[in-house]
């Protein structure tokens, strides 16, 4: 009989403990906001307290941060992202590459804080100057934000690292063209083409881009010359030869395939089939 009472007592205590723990858990969940992160000590102090186990502590906080920032029920969860990733994880393990990019993605994509994300990637690149992926990611984010010049600068940083794949150099050249500097982009594509280490796919892409850029530069210069001619003479030139004869252009440019550009003297427009320009028509 006594055993029965003991068992009943144990069951009652277990049930009470479980239900009170659940109730407390709900209360704590309500009380807890992102403010708790404010009290997460700086990584410099945690490093001291870790007694030589800083990398594993960084791992634990990294895993915890993933769970925390995946909780979409919290509206204020982005308040201390930079503190967690920059001041805590990066201080504990400055070579934790995944933490830099994940923190930056949370900041930029989830929180819309481009500058914060770029600052975290910059911090990571300063601590790991051989990791091209960090400026590469920063460049992509700038590109998505339509900051092409800034993107080109980041691609330049990434491309300067010897381990960076040719694709990074290609991205840099493309981004320089998007920022408006066609001549600089042409030079970069030419460098890729001239590099004996460039892979065959990149060679084909570079050749195509060089043809395209050459045409764009010619068309831009011709349009500017035609416009100057029109302002001076109140009419469009009869032909590109006239434009050259009266000194508006130093030479008559031709398409990369050696053919002349199509010129319409009535509208002053320069045009040509895109496939022929890029050499896509075979």
């Amino acid at each position, binding site marked *: 009989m006594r055993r029965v009472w003991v068992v009943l007592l144990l069951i009652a205590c277990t049930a009470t403990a479980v239900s009170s723990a659940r109730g407390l858990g709900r209360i704590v969940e309500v009380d807890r906001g992102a403010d708790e992160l404010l009290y997460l000590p700086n990584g410099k102090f945690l490093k*001291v307290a870790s*007694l*030589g*186990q*800083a*990398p*594993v502590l*960084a*791992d634990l906080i*990294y*895993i915890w941060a*993933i*769970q925390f920032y995946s909780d979409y029920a919290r509206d204020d969860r982005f308040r201390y992202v930079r503190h967690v990733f920059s001041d805590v994880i990066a201080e504990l*393990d400055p*070579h*934790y590459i*995944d*933490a830099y990019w*994940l923190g930056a993605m949370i900041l930029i994509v989830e929180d819309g804080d481009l500058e914060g994300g770029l600052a975290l990637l910059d911090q990571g690149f300063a601590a790991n100057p051989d990791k091209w992926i960090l400026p590469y990611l920063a460049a992509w984010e700038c590109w998505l934000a339509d900051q092409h010049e800034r993107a080109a600068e980041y691609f330049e940083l990434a491309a300067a690292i010897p381990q960076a794949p040719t694709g990074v150099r290609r991205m840099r050249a493309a981004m320089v063209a998007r920022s408006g500097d066609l001549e600089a982009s042409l030079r970069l594509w030419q460098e890729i083409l001239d590099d004996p280490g460039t892979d065959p796919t990149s060679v084909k892409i570079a050749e195509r881009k060089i043809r395209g850029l050459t045409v764009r530069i010619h068309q831009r210069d011709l349009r500017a010359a035609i416009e100057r001619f029109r302002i001076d003479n109140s009419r469009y030139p009869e032909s590109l030869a006239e434009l050259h004869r009266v000194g508006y252009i130093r030479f008559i440019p031709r398409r990369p395939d050696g053919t002349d550009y199509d010129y319409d003297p009535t509208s002053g427009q320069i045009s040509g089939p895109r496939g022929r320009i890029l050499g896509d028509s075979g």
Partner: protein
Amino acid sequence: MNAAQRREPGTVPRTFAVVQAIALNTFREAIRDRVLYLLLVFAILLIAVSRLLSLLTVGSEVKIIKDVGLSAISLFGVLTAVFVGVSLVFKEIERRTVYTLLANPVRRWQFVVGKFIGLLTVLSLNVLIMFLVLAAVLLVYGESPWPLLPALCLIVVELGIVTAFALLFSCVTNPILAAVWTFAVYVSGHLSWSLLLLREKIPTAAGRALSDLFYWLLPNLELLNIKAEVVHQLPLSSGRVPLAILYGVSYTIIVLVVACYAFERKDFI
């Protein structure tokens, strides 16, 4: 009677044989104490971590497995060194087996050194087996475990220092105090660099001298910590590992000499 046995007591081969016998006995004793059960815990921990990671993390799985593996090897090793080490000498005294032992032609320092070598052999075996488990898990992930070897080597050196301290304290006090002191040395050994920072803040010359004294007196265990470097496969300076081994071995010998001296002066009656 063979040639070795016919040699006079106190010659090198006999000294070695005595130390070897005590070391072997210590090794067997530790195995009987089920120290190797820790390996099972380690294996389960590592396999569980590797399975859990795929659910919890974004990337970095291999990095985290390496971090957890190396930290667990280090911490399990330190715990074994402390809890087995602090009772090594005390247990012999309490059971009075030390009287029988020292009644034989065994020098006291041979007893201490034998105990040290025996325990360090157990710890090294532990570390080796734990590394093999870690290596197996890493190979499943298609990752080479060999770059971790320098860190593993320095973990063994660190365990040597901790074991020597545990043995020293075991010679002079009871196991509880010895465990507390050994942990204190382990903790301060990982914080000894902060004494240099403290030195800059102390205005008096005496205070600075005291800070310097403690800095050089305490083991600098952070010098033996290259876990982050090997996990990220960062280049290590050519002399770093050999110098760290040299530092650790020299420090261990100093502590062992002090332990031998303390045991020589110990009065059992």
